[in-house]
Every structure is written in C-alpha cells, then in structure tokens.
C-alpha cells in the first residue's frame, strides 16, 4: 500500500527538480517569423535540395511535443553536425487556442527560444507561425485525415529525401510521417518512435555522397 505514495512522491520530485534544471540551460535558439504561405520555410527547404530534410511541427508549450524534440535530440541530432541533414522546426500555438481557459495563455513567440534549446544541432532552422495557418496548410498537403475528418497538423514529424521539392502551395509528401496525435490513431501514420525515425534518417544519409572534408575545402580555396 505504501508503494503508491512513495512512487508519487518520487515522480513529483523528478518533475520539480527537472523544472529547476531548465533554468540552467543555455544558448537561446533563434527563429524566423513564418507568414501564412510559409514563404521563408519554402525558400529554405528548396535551397537545401540534395540534403535529407526533417520537418517537425510542434507547439512550444506542449509537453508531449517537447518530449518528442528531446527524444529526437537524444537519438539523432545531438550526435551529428552533418550538413547533409537539415532540420526545419515550425512552432505554432495550439494548446489553449480552441479551449481557452482564463489565466492560461496559448504559446507566444517568447516560448520558441526555450523550446528550441532542446535541439543541439547546428543545422536546425526554427520558425514561428503565430496564426497556426501552417498546420492547416500541411494537413491538406500531406493528407492528414482520419476517415473523412481532416486533422490539424501539429506534433507531427516528417522525413524528406534529397530529391523532395516544394512546388505547390503546401509542402510535398514526405517519405515518412510520424505523429503523436491521438486523433490519428489507427491511421497509416505511425506513432512517433524516435529511434526508428533516426534509423530511417541514417539510412537515407548513407545513400548520399559524403560532404568534402574541411581539408579538401581548404585546399580548394587556397590552391
């Protein structure tokens, strides 16, 4: 009988001490404001054709999304600085937008740098879409549906191959889309598994030519 209160106390301590540790994190992430057509993201995405590109769409104050970012960092991003892997993270406000509770505010731009600190990789590009229009754009573009119900795109994790090009209004269809949304349970989109996601990315990277070494670049610049 005493194990439950003990487990509860331990869990609370874990949460509280982790919260305190947040203040010790350093290195604020920068971000770009994203318009409703996602123009900047589109330009950046197409500029990196030839690279494996990842697109994460999250709410910067959603704990499950943040856990997804932390898992991606642990299993993939913190261990590489490979320029052939480019990561685009779109932050949009979701929690508290539809069901507004007085005193509880939806995400704001100030929340983006804090969330962005979870990804320790030099090739991460952060965007803030305050209207949330990008979620609708992506949902239509990739067919995020459960039966006849169109599901708003957030807490989704996409992989694009080196050939993917953003031609139409919305992003192209990805090679893989994982999600954490309960609304998409039972659909073709698998639950986020950061390890499986990382394996898929590494497989794609292995098929790309290696970037020139820094020594080769130096020789090329100074013959």
């Amino acid at each position, binding site marked *: 009988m005493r194990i*439950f209160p003990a487990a509860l106390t331990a869990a609370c301590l874990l949460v509280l001490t982790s919260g305190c540790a947040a*203040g010790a994190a350093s290195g604020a992430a920068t971000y770009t404001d994203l318009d409703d057509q996602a123009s900047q993201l589109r330009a950046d995405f197409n500029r990196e054709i030839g690279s494996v590109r990842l697109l994460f769409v999250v709410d910067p104050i959603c704990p499950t999304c*943040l*856990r997804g970012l932390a898992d991606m960092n642990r299993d993939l991003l913190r261990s590489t600085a490979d320029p052939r892997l480019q990561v685009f993270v779109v932050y949009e406000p979701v929690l508290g937008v539809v*069901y507004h509770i007085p005193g509880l*505010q939806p995400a704001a731009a100030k929340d983006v740098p804090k969330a962005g600190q979870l990804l320790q990789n030099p090739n991460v590009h952060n965007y803030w879409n305050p209207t949330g229009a990008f979620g609708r754009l992506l949902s239509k573009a990739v067919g995020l549906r459960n039966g006849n119900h169109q599901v708003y795109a957030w807490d989704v994790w996409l992989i694009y191959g080196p050939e993917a090009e953003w031609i139409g209004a919305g992003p192209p269809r990805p090679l893989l889309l994982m999600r954490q949304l309960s609304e998409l349970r039972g659909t073709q989109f698998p639950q986020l598994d950061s390890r499986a996601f990382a394996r898929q990315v590494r497989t794609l990277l292995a098929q790309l030519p290696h970037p020139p070494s820094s020594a080769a670049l130096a020789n090329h610049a100074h013959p």
Partner: protein
Amino acid sequence: MTEKVRVLGTAGGALGLGVFAATIGACCAFPWAVALLGVSGAVALARLSFLLPYSLLGAAILLAGAFWWAYRPPAVCADGTCNAVSRRPLRVIVWAATALVAGMATIALTSW
C-alpha cells in the same frame, strides 16, 4: 491501527493517485505545464505519462480497500453487548473520495 486511520489512509492515497493521473492526463490538453515547470519539467512530466493507467489502477485498488474497511462486518463481542462506533462518517468519506477520483479519472482519460 484503527479503522478510521485505515479508511483515511487508503482513501487519501486513492485521491493522491487520482490527482497524479489527472495532472499527467491534463499536461497536454491545457497550456499550464511549461509555465509552471519550465521546458525540462514539462518534458519530464510527459515522460511520466506511461504511469497514468497504473496510477488509476492503484487508485481503484486503494478505494476497494477503503470500502472494505468501511463496510466490513463489525467484530462481535463475546457477550454481544459491544457498542460499535458508527461508521457513517467513514462511509461518507469513502464515497466522496470515490466521486473525486472518478472525476479526476475522467479528466485524465479524456485529456490523454
């Protein structure tokens, strides 16, 4: 240990687990966790979400124990003259705890 302590302990434990489950369940439905716990704290809270069904199961077991202590047949004295203490207040507490835990379980499961 008196019946009062047993009933209050088990019902209180069930309430605690119910609150814990509701906290985990509601972490991702309402925008409070990052403001209160910070980014790392919210991540840690989300990592505890797997405990939700276990905490509800634990709460149910504790409530069953509370009902047992509140409703079990009283001990019969040898001469049959024992003046048993009324259990009515304890039973009210157990039912109130059950209602609260049910409410928190509803919050937890609908938000999860």
